[in-house]
Structure formats: C-alpha cells, structure tokens
C-alpha cells in the first residue's frame, strides 16, 4: 500500500499553515531582536563587538519564545479541558507531543546559533578589554547557567532519541526530568545583567529582553499541572477485581468515586509498590455506566510483568494464587483521546490491532448502554474491525462481543469484522473446517460473524461502503443529498496507520466525508 510522500505530508494545508506560522514567527522574532540591539544607541558599546552580538540577541529572543512554549504541550490535564472547547477544531490537541518535539528542535537550532555567537562575543570582549573570555564563560551567572543548560540538553536530547526511548523508557523518562534544572537555568540566565546600557549615557541599567517575564509562565502553568496530577492521584482508589486473560493480558477493575470519564479516554496508572515515580498510560476499557473502571494490560515489559506478578497473575499452578493484599493504585486521568469523539459521526469505522482494541471495547460497551437506556445518539452504523495475530487474543473481549452481538441492537447497526493474521497449524485448520460447516457460530470466536483470515483490504472496504451509502442501501432513511460523516478510528502500529490514512484520503469525497483519527501511544 502506498505511503504519502514527504512533499504530500509536509505541504498538506494544515501542516503548511503551521510551518508558515512556526518559521515565520521565529524569523520575525529573530529580526526584531536583531534590529532592537542594532538600532539602540544606549547599547552601542555592546554592538561595537560586532555582528555576533546582534545575532546572539536575536537568537536569544527566539529561545525565550520556545522556552515559554515547550512546557505547554505536556500539560495533559490542561489539554484535556481545552479539548472540550471549540479550540479542538482549530488546534489538533492530540499532536501535543509532536509540537513538543518541534519546540525542542527549534531550541536546538537557536541554541547553536546563540552559543556560537557568544563564543565569538566573549573573545571579542576580551580583545576590547571588557572582561577575559574564560571569566564570562565560567564565572558569570549567564555563562554558568548556559553551560549547565548545554550539558542537560546533551543528556536530554540523546536519551529522548527513539532508539533509547523504545529500548528503555525509564532512562528517557528520568533523564527528561532534568528539564526542571534546565528551566531554572533558563529563568536565571539573565541574572548578572550583561546587557547594560552605556555608562557614558547616564547611570547604567539593564536593558535585556527580560524573556523570563514570559518564559516563567510556561513553568508556572506546568507546576500547577503537576500539582493537579498529584492531587488527583491521591484520591482514594480500590482494586475490586483482577482477571487473568489468556495471551498474557491482565484486566484490573477498580473503584474510584472521584473519577469521571467518557468512553474512549485513557488514564495514567502508578503503583507505588513497584515504582513511586513511574506513570504508565492505559486505555479505559469499561464504559461510564459500569460500576467499576477497568483497564486491560498486556504483559510486554518490565513494568507490566512486575505488575502482573504483584497481582498474582503469573502463577502457573492450576488453582492460581491469591495475594494477601492487593497493591495500592494511583490513577491520574482521564485524558482525552480521539476515540471519545466517535459519537459525533453518523458512521464509525473502528479499527483495532491486537491490544489496540481497548479504546473500542469501551466505546462498544457504551453503545450497548446507550441502547439499553434508549438514549439518543447521532451514531447510526458501527463497523468494527479487529485485526489479531493469534487466536488467544480473541478471548479478551469475547464475552463483550458476544453480548453485543446477541442483543443485536438495530438491524445492521453494529457489524464485526474479525481478522486473524497469524499462520495456523494444520490441526487447527482441520478443526476449523470440521466445526465451521455445521454450526452457526464461528469456531474461533464463537460469534455469528465469521473470522476472516489475512489482512483486510481497506481500500476495497471503503469503496464498497461508499457505493452502499450512495445507492441509499446503507442508511435507508437518510436523504442522499445530505452529507454523511464517516469517522475512521484506528489504534495500533503506525505502519498500518500510514497506509490506512492514505486509503481514507482517497475515499473522502464531497457528500461522504471520511476522516481519520489515530490513537497515540
């Protein structure tokens, strides 16, 4: 399947608008800072050092701008509230980490400009008998904080590289908290005041840009964000049930009265007994009407393995083992994810891969509750795709799917399409063949809808759906001249996401609007 090219991706209207704003604002600030230094007669004795001073001042202003912005996209609690407002249509809040990275790249670039300009400045300053270069570097507050920030940046940027992040998330996570010291240095970088007015023109006073006046707001907002996280995580939480599913998946159900959420949202989970500082994101798999909150955790790493161990799920003995007391849980959340907007479409196509089914489990449950309680909903049709590698995975949500199928809400309201991608053993195939013929249920999933083998061809699926809508077969009552919104929601590996996005774009047309939404990990 085709992937969009670099050009198509970076010059898509929305992205292009961002780039124009992003580079435009930086270049504008740079020129502003540059000219302000150059044209100020009070700063002439500094400008005399040369062009490097004006460059470093312009770059410094850009750094202040980025320094103020970089903490905003990681305020997940605040973003969660902003998601609910009209701003959600203008700003893609789910791309917050992407924006955080753009800020970081920008900081790196301007840091290089700023630092190299300063290296020249300080040599020139010594030649002009202002101060020895090494003194400015290592004795003045600005020099010290600058060097500390550089060292922190080396450690933070390298440990945030994808190879390290994917190998050892903890290293990345802990190293990234050096940002605290980085920010302290950023706010105090101008202490000692090196941008002084010319003493010949009256008493000298500071005439820097005072960037800390606005960079500090980013820090203050982030501080409140962390306080809010701490406060929410300390609300009482009690594990009520632990279910050990096949294929190494563990379901934890807990009660937290102060926790209000919508279907499709996610939470951060912390187990003080394992680690006081590690917070791990999990999708909520229960619906708001359930008396409990549940998460499904697949054992794929250190943390999830240890957690399962602690809950007594990894015991191989027949009877299983019940831990004397369950560990304390701390929950932060819920946080918004694209999946919570599913109910704003007429037709929703939900695509989950493996454990990526979790946000949709919550949504499917919610659909069931909505139907039971006869609450009105905009949603008319749901096509649910679940692509799984092995047969054991089906058992995670088998009971849920079966209940949903049995209730069969409205004719054709909810359709399951289950795909199995792994190779089957010959005996399994034989077994399927024998059982498949006679029974009306699928031998693997025990559902009425048959399991497909292999990967779905989404281009084909969308085309058929479009034809069906156009001919009026799909949604019989709707007027054909009205536009229909089809939301495609995906949760799974990014390789399939890219190709799926291309297919969605191809299928998008005037009357039938396809939109693509991806869950982020």
């Amino acid at each position, binding site marked *: 399947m085709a992937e969009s090219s670099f050009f198509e991706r970076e010059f898509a209207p929305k992205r292009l608008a961002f780039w124009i704003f992003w580079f435009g604002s930086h270049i504008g600030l740079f020129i502003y800072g540059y000219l302000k230094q150059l044209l100020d007669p009070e700063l002439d004795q500094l400008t005399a050092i040369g062009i490097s001073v004006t460059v470093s001042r312009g770059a410094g202003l850009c750094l202040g701008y980025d320094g103020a912005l970089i903490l905003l996209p990681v305020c997940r609690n605040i973003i969660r509230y902003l998601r609910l407002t009209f701003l959600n249509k203008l700003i893609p809040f789910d791309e917050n980490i992407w924006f955080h990275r753009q800020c970081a790249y920008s900081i790196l670039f301007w840091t290089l400009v700023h630092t*190299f300009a300063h*290296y*020249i400045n300080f*040599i020139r300053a*010594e030649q002009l008998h202002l101060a*020895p*270069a*090494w003194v400015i*570097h290592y004795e003045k507050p600005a020099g010290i904080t600058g*060097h500390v920030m*550089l*060292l922190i940046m*080396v*450690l933070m*940027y*390298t*440990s945030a*590289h994808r*190879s*390290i992040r*994917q*190998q*050892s*998330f*903890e*290293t990345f996570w802990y190293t990234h908290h050096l940002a605290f010291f980085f920010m302290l240095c950023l706010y105090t970088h101008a202490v000692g005041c090196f941008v002084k007015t010319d003493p010949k023109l009256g008493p000298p006073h500071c005439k820097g840009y005072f960037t800390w006046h606005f960079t500090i707001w980013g820090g203050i907002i982030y501080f409140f964000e962390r306080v809010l996280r701490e406060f929410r995580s300390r609300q009482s939480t009690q594990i009520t049930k632990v279910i050990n599913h096949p294929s190494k998946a563990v379901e934890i159900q807990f009660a937290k009265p102060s926790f209000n959420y919508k279907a499709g949202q996610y939470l951060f989970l912390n187990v003080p007994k394992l680690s006081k500082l590690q917070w791990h994101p999990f999708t909520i798999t229960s619906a708001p009407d359930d008396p409990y909150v549940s998460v499904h955790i697949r054992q*794929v*790493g*250190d*943390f999830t393995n240890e957690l399962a161990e602690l809950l007594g799920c990894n015991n191989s003995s027949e009877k299983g083992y019940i831990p004397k007391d369950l560990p304390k849980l701390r929950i932060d959340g819920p946080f918004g994810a694209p999946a919570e907007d599913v109910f704003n479409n007429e037709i929703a196509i939900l695509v989950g*891969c*493996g*454990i*990526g089914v979790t946000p949709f489990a919550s949504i499917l449950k919610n659909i069931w509750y909505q139907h039971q309680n006869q609450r009105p909903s905009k949603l008319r049709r749901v096509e649910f795709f679940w692509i799984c590698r092995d047969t054991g995975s089906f058992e995670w949500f088998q009971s849920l799917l079966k209940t949903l199928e049995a209730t069969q809400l409205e004719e054709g309201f909810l359709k399951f399409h289950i795909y199995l991608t792994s190779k089957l053993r010959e005996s399994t195939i034989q077994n399927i063949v024998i059982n498949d013929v006679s029974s009306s249920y699928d031998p693997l999933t025990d559902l009425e809808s048959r399991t497909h083998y292999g990967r779905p061809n989404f281009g084909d699926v969308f085309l058929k759906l479009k034809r069906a809508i156009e001919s009026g077969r799909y949604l019989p009552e709707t007027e054909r001249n009205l536009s229909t919104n089809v939301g495609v929601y995906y949760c*799974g*590996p990014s390789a399939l996401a890219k190709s799926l996005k291309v297919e969605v774009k191809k299928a998008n047309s005037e009357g039938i609007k396809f939109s693509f939404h991806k869950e982020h*990990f």
Partner: protein
Amino acid sequence: MGKLIWNQWARLIGLTAGVFQVIGGIFAFFYHYSMFNAVININSLFNPFDVFAVICTVTGLIILAIELPLSFFKDTFITNSFIPRILLYIPISFVSVFNYQNVNPALYLFIATLMYLTASIKGETNRVNNTLRSKV
C-alpha cells in the same frame, strides 16, 4: 520496557561530542584562544598557529568515523569492542579541553567514555539487538 543499553546512549553522546569537536576545531582556525590562559601558559601552542585547531578537527572526524561507524572501521578491532574507544577518547578529551571551544565537547566525550566503560563492565556487546518490541 527493556534495560538501558549503555553503549547505545554513549554512542549518541559520542556523536554529539564528535560534531561539536569538529566545529570547535574549525572555529579555532579563526580564533586562537587558550581556555586555561590564567592557569597555565601554553600560548606558544596557540600563536602564531593554533595547533589545537588541527588536533580537534582531526580527532573530531575520527570520533565521528568510529561512532557512525564508517565502512572502513566496521568490524575492525576498534569498533568491535569498547576498550579501544575508551583508551582513545580519554586522551582526546584531555587534550581538547585546553582549546577555547572544545571544553564542552571534551566534557561530553568524557561522559560518553564513562558510559562506554559502564557498558564494558556490564559486559554489553556491540551487537545491538534491534528487535523493536511491537507496541500493541
């Protein structure tokens, strides 16, 4: 989540240090300045010609060649184990610290060296197993 592979991180910091080392070296062709002027008088090495400019540029390129690694270093004794690197980087960082713009790269290189040392003590090998876990 897996364990931290020290040499993976050391390599990234080494690459960063290498890039700065080269830039600092090139910088020194234009601006001759001894960072420890006040402590030790080695001005004869800086004027009229800055010896460190050549040293830093060349060593920076060597660091980059080892860390990338370039094809002629691949699978040689230099890249197959961490000990040659550690032995090479310590003198490089010690020498380049005297040059004006190479104090920082020297520090980063020293950190990378310590990480390589940790890696070899922990018995890591250079064969990074790049089987990225499926996240789903």
